[in-house]
């Protein structure tokens, strides 16, 4: 189902990226994971991704910056925000900035698969 779709995942917790990569790879997505957000930004500048999944609270670069950079690179990219600190205003802010979906941690791999599947469906 995910064959041919390029996904970039940014989360400063290595275990999160590893698990999400595993879940999405099973569905055929081509996945790149980054634990250093600035490296992810560089990669976004180099390459257009279909889907970007980003944590919001990270050390040097926050998820909103990743969102802006990804959408600045390509309006076709769908950005899914993930965070353990979800609040209504933050969700509205991210959605207002153009995020495609918002998930609260902890979530199951199936939750992410569903969100990514929805994003692919609208691609």
């Amino acid at each position, binding site marked *: 189902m995910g064959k041919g779709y390029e996904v970039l995942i940014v989360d400063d917790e290595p275990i999160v990226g590893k698990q999400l990569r595993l879940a999405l790879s099973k569905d055929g997505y081509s996945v790149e994971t980054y634990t250093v957000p600035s490296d992810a930004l560089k990669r976004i500048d180099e390459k257009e991704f279909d889907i970007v999944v980003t944590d919001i609270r990270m050390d040097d670069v926050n998820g909103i910056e990743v969102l802006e950079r990804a959408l600045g690179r390509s309006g076709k990219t769908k950005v899914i925000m993930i965070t353990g600190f979800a609040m209504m205003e933050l969700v509205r802010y991210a*959605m207002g900035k153009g995020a495609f979906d918002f998930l609260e941690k902890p979530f199951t791999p199936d939750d992410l698969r569903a969100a990514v599947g929805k994003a692919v469906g609208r691609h």
Partner: protein
Amino acid sequence: MAVITISKASMGKAVADGIRREFCYGYFDSDEVFLAASKEFGVPEAKIRSALQNAPTLWGMSSATRQKLISCYQSTLAKFLLRDNVVYYGPAGHLLIQGVSHALKVLLWPGDNTTCNIISSISKHDVINEESLYDLVIDTGKTSVEEAVEIISAHALSTRYRTTTFSINCVKNIALSSKVKAALIDVDHDVNVRASGGNVYIHVRAADRKRQKLTAAISNMVKSIRDVVNVEVTVTEDIFQKYAGTYR
């Protein structure tokens, strides 16, 4: 897209109807919620209506009964909102559905001279954004039905109010936590219930000697409720019950 809650007001029904037609949305009002809540929880409709619409009186229903009935209404209202792309016209939507990012909460304010002045001093467009309870306050003294529909529609189309996985889960959590609360209010009318993805966290106060028995009783009761996956009960000591017990 957003779900829209509109408070009861003189031209509220006309505005709700206008939005329903504008977006081809579903529509429901408090009468439907009262009826559905009554069926689901086996409580007379008139009692739920009274708990929500009538002010507390000295000799009226107890605070615990009122809270229980309001929880029944809240749970049913949340389930209705899960349909998505709907307009709700009725009381307390802004209070009962809090923290849901795709719920656009609208207050139609019947402006008098005082309120008009306050509103005018804040916004040229007779609209206030009040983040705490409402997203949008519209002065019906200065705004026609058509204009109100236009203002609400413009806001509803904003991506800020787009449905997300998180916001849908929030509505599900409200539906479940209020259902559990309704079941537990007879145990402790100050019961605190939080739900997250089928996990239910309950906090009650009780005398220390009742702690174990109460925890087991609550767990068993709540586990039988549909959609509950796991129950975590915290009992803190009720000081009043503790001292009352020593004088028995």
